[in-house]
Each structure stands twice: as C-alpha cells, then as structure tokens.
C-alpha cells in the first residue's frame, strides 16, 4: 500500500505543480461554466434592461395598456408568452428575469377598483433574482396607475363601470330607497361629467396622468387599488432552475477532461523520460503502479468536481437534488476519465502526441458530447453522434442527481456506460504498461 500511495501522492504533486495542468483542471472548468451560464441566459440583462416574460390573459383596455407600457419602458425587454407555465419555464431556465401575468380578472377593468378589490397583477421571479423583484413590483404599480386616466377618459370603460355601479346599487340590500336614489343620482352626475370630457382633454389627462395617479395613490394610504403579487418560483424537479445548472456539469466535464489530459500526458512523459523504467525496476507490480495512478486521477477528478459544485452552490445558488447519487456519479465520471487517460497514454508514444493529438481528441469529444453547447441546442444528428462521446455520459450522469432529479432507473444507464468506459480504458492502458513487466 505504501508504494501505491507514494505513486498517487507523487502524481498529485506533479499535477499541482504544473501551472498549465492546474489551469485546465481547476480554473478553466469554472470559467467555462460561468461564461456559458451567462451566454445561455443566467444573469444576463442584455445591457441594463430586465428581461420579462409577459402573459396577457385579459383582452381588456387595462391589460393592453399595461402590456404596451411595459414594452415601451426603457427598464424592460419584454417577450410575450402564451401561458403562465411557459413563462415560468423561461424564468426557471434563466431565459428571463421574471414573468408578469396580466390575469383574466383585469377584464372587469375599473369595476374591480370600484368594488374595493383593487386590480391584481401577478409576477413570478427566480429566487436568485430577488434584487430585481422589488424593482419589478414598483414598476408594475406605477404602470398600472398610469392606466387609470386612460380608463377614466374611455367612455366605454366608464359607461361599463357606471352601469355596473348602478346594478350594484339597485341590488344592494342594505340601502334604503332614498339612499339608492341618491347614489343613482351621483352616478348619473358623474357619468354626465365624464362624458363631457373631450377627447383632447382626455388625451391631455392621459399623458399627464401619472402624477395624478400617483397623487391618488398617495391620498389613499389604506386603499391599495393595485395589488402586485410577486411569487418566487420554486425549483421544479427535472428542470434547471437557471442556466448555471446546465453549464456547471459541463464545466465539471471540462475539469475532468483537463485532468484526463494531464494524467495521460504524465503517463507518456514517464515512458518518454525513462522514469517509468525506474518504476518498473522497483519491487512493485503493475497492479501497484496502475492503482497508484488510478487513485491520483480519481482524487484529482473528485477535487475538481467538488470545487466546481462548491462554486455553483455558493455563488450561483444551485442546489443538489440527490446528493448521494451525485457522489456516485462524480466517482463514476472520475473513474471513466481516469480510464480514458490510461487508454490515451497507451496510444500516444510521445509527449507531443499526448499534448497535441490527445488534447485535440478531447476537444472534439467534448464538443460533440455537449461539453460546450448543451445537447438540447444541437441538431438531431449531432445528438445521435454524442452517444459516442464520454462527455455526454458524464454530463448525463452528473445532471441527473444535480438538477434533473432523475430516477435511479434513468440514472443507471449513464453510470453503467461510465464504469464500462473506465474499465475498458484501464484494461487498454494497463496492458500497455503491463507489457514490459511480462518478461
């Protein structure tokens, strides 16, 4: 065991003392994960604008007005979504910062306001974007108030509101006939006043109505005519909460690739520089040598995964759906890439081959395996091709317990494939190393 640990310790030391290997194993994957996280939507604001999904369930003047004002507001970049679920998915995927739902209840227009219920608007935000939630809530209040002058100047809306008010008074049980008469008289007076407002005045009121509305809001401290209900989106199993959930597993496989490249190169270097001969002369067997290198590669693989997950969880609010399964997946992925390192070392005779062709092969496998562009963005033929890449299986194995919350049955296939890749790689690599011992 002493020899095995000596080999493992030595290989880890060599890895950590090579600046290039440290960069590609530990720094590059984190950079890739963050960079692609932003590229694919997480945390991006396309400049200073907040991206909003807008779902308009109401055809009312009020809903149309809010939608139009949101679209024209310099603070927002809006995209219309057909349903609440679609908008919520976009928030979960990090494609938009929040979703604004203009509900069917807005059809009642000013009726709701006069009936004391107020006007309800719903907003859905990503929990990791709480800072923006307050801004969105304030803006929605402002925009809704801005609609009031338009509504008051709109004869149809007002006529509908007055009719509804008359009906309410007529059907009210607690009012005496005198009170009902007075109420109806007031409504008639108000109706004749509003109908006397010309279109130009109405337009003028509409354009300068923000202040009036604000004043109105200020004078009705206990009455909340606009109610913006902000809901934080709960992460849903099987869907990434943000693009970082997708890109951090990608970052991990890049880290494993860096690790795999470094160890493949180190094995070739041992052979090319003759240190392998010293190892072979020592009273150890190929089992000791391979086990030592396996432990080093596994430890490095687990280290890089721990680092990347820690960054994802601490700085990007990711959470792990199945921690125990994630540990198994991390081990399987490390094992597979350690095996690949052994196999690559068997095929490369020189350091130049390992660093050139070897790393080139890693890059190609990573590209087709979804290491850079997520598989769901790829055309079908590339997705099919990706089954031949160990990166695909590593991403699948890690994503499953990380955010997909897949069942054990679904998880078992990528795990088996990874262990198979690992064993195959180890057998190929071990045979190449074993040969000189078989005298």
């Amino acid at each position, binding site marked *: 065991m002493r020899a095995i640990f000596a080999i493992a310790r030595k290989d880890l030391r060599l890895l950590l003392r090579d600046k290039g290997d440290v960069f590609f194993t530990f720094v590059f994957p984190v950079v890739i994960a963050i960079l692609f996280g932003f590229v694919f939507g997480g945390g991006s604001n396309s400049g200073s604008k907040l991206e909003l999904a807008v779902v308009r369930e109401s055809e009312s003047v009020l809903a149309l007005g809010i939608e139009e004002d949101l679209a024209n507001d310099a603070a927002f970049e809006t995209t219309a979504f057909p349903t609440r679920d679609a908008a919520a998915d976009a928030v979960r995927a990090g494609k938009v910062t929040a979703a604004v739902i203009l509900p069917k209840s807005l059809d009642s227009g000013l009726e709701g306001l006069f009936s004391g219920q107020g006007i309800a608007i719903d907003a859905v935000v990503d929990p990791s974007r709480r800072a923006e939630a307050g801004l969105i809530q304030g803006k929605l209040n402002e925009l809704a108030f801005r609609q009031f002058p338009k509504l008051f100047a709109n004869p149809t809306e007002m006529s509908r509101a007055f009719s509804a008010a008359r009906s309410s008074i007529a059907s009210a049980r607690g009012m005496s006939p005198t009170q009902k008469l007075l109420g109806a008289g007031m409504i008639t007076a108000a109706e004749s006043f509003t109908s006397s407002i010309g279109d130009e005045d109405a337009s003028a009121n509409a354009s300068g109505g923000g202040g009036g509305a604000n004043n109105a809001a200020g004078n009705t401290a206990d009455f909340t005519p606009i109610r913006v209900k902000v809901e934080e989106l709960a992460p849903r199993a099987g869907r990434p909460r943000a693009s970082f959930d997708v890109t951090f597993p990608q970052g991990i496989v890049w880290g494993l690739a860096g690790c795999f490249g470094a160890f493949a190169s180190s094995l070739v270097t041992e052979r090319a520089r003759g240190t392998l001969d010293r190892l072979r*002369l020592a009273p150890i067997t190929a089992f000791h040598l391979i086990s030592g290198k396996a432990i080093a590669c596994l430890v490095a693989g687990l280290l890089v995964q721990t680092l990347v997950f820690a960054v994802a969880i601490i700085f990007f609010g990711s959470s792990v759906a199945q921690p125990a399964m994630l540990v198994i997946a991390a081990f399987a992925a490390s094992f597979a890439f350690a095996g690949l390192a052994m196999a690559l070392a068997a095929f490369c005779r020189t350091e130049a081959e390992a660093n050139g062709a070897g790393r080139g092969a890693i890059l190609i496998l990573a590209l087709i395996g979804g290491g850079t562009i997520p598989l769901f963005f790829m055309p079908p033929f590339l997705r099919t091709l990706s089954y031949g890449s160990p990166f695909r299986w590593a991403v699948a194995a890690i994503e499953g317990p990380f955010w997909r919350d897949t069942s054990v049955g679904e998880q078992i296939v990528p795990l088996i494939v990874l262990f198979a890749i690992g064993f195959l790689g180890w057998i190929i690599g071990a045979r190449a190393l074993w040969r000189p011992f078989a005298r």
Partner: protein
Amino acid sequence: MLALRDIRRRFGSTIAVDGLSLEVRTGEVFGLLGPNGAGKSTTIAIATGLLAPDAGSVDLLGLGSPSNPKVRMHLGLAPQEITLYAELTARENLRFFADLYGVSNARVRVDELLALVELDARANDRVATFSGGMKRRLNLAAALVHDPKLVLLDEPTAGVDPQSRNRILELVRRLAGEGKTVLYTTHYMEEAAKICDRVGIVDHGRMLDVGTVAELVARHGGQSAVTIERDGAEERIFTADPVAEVARQFARANSDRERGEVGREVTGLRIERPDLETVFLSLTGRSLRE
C-alpha cells in the same frame, strides 16, 4: 554477482547484442567500454530485467533472473537519461523512490544520500533548477536509495563538466570502497582505466575481451612507442621496454657529443605506452572515438 550468458537481442533487423557473455564479481567495479551504439545500454537493460533477451540467460546473485521483483530488489540502476521528476525537489524524488522500495527509516536514508552526493544544501529545490552535474549525482543517488548490492551505472558522466565528472568518479570509488559491486558503462577509456578493476571491451554487441587494464594492454596493446626528435626529424621506435630504450638513446647521444659529432643532439623525447584506446584499435581496427 551478475552473470550474463550468451545474450542475444535484436531490434528489427538490427542486432544490438550478439552472444554477449560477462561475469561481474562481487565487490569489483566492472567497466563496459565501447563506442556509442556498441550495445552497452541494451546489455544493461537486459541485466536489470527491463528488457527480455531473445536468447541467453541472466543470473543475479545466484537467485535467478532480475525479472523477479525479489531478485531485482538487489540491484540499483542509474540510467543514461536523467530519470527523475523535474518538478519534484531532490528530497521528494528520493523519498518517492524510497517509498517504492519500502525503505525503512526513509527520511534518514534520504538525508544520507543527499549528503553523499553533496546535494543536502539543495535538498528542497526542484530538480528542474539543477545543473547537469547535480542532476547526474541525484540520478545516481536514486539508484542507491534501497542500498542495493549491485549498482549499474549507464554512462553516468555523459554530458557533465570535468568537475562534476570527477565528483561522480570519486563517488563510484567510494561505493566500491563500501563493498558495492558496480557495473559501469562508458565510452571514455580514461574513466574505465581510472576506476575499473576489470574492463570488458564491447563492439557491435559482442564482448571482444575482458580483463584488467594491464592484462588487456599486455594482450592487445602491442609495444610502447618511443619518439625521438633530432635536428627537426622524428624517429619512432617500438619497444617492450621504453625506459631502457630511452636510456639507450641518451647514452648514444652522449657518446656522439664526446666524439665531437654535432647536429645529432636529442631535442625531444616522448614515450607512448599502449592504453585502452590502443587495445580497442587493435581489437576493432577503429578508434574508440570514431
């Protein structure tokens, strides 16, 4: 200690070792002398068990082939290449090899070796920062970490400056003084003559002859040459007893002077004794340095 019998090894169409036999006795420094490409390193690789011979046998300490790890444990190799980890320190390198061999009290052993090769002051520096001579010495120390009975040094002075070379040769003598058996390959005849108890002359994968330097010279070196310069002309005389020949030449010069014969004074005199170079020339028909 080490016996190679009728070893043959070929790489493709190239015959690297062609029926080579040798026996290294316990406690001696045995030199394998031959030009580059003579088959010395292949012989060493076969002797250590790193390479399997196509034919022939290797026996170490009467225990059998060094392909057996228990037998291999008794030998230490300093290969021609610097087989160290450049990004590890001198101490880390030696400690690693000590751990591989399961050396007990490894820390003490590593310190001893660092002192032996005079690298204790640079023990914690990375090997990448060492000079060629320092790397060579550490390469040698790595071969000694498990205190082997037989040490194989494959061209241990290749590419080092004269000062480092002398240090390495002193080190080899010291090892011999401590009772180690050393198999030393070189293409420098001066080194072989200086430190080896016996020398084997190798060329084209064959052992041409084995013996002490004196025995080889006596067998193949021929006579010494006495070169006398007179009046700008040189006269070369081959003789088995050069000292007597010189005395005779001086006596003749004195006699000429007494007789008043001028222009026959000896102006220069040089004795060329046969050496391993002469031996190699005699055995192969070409110079060791070709």
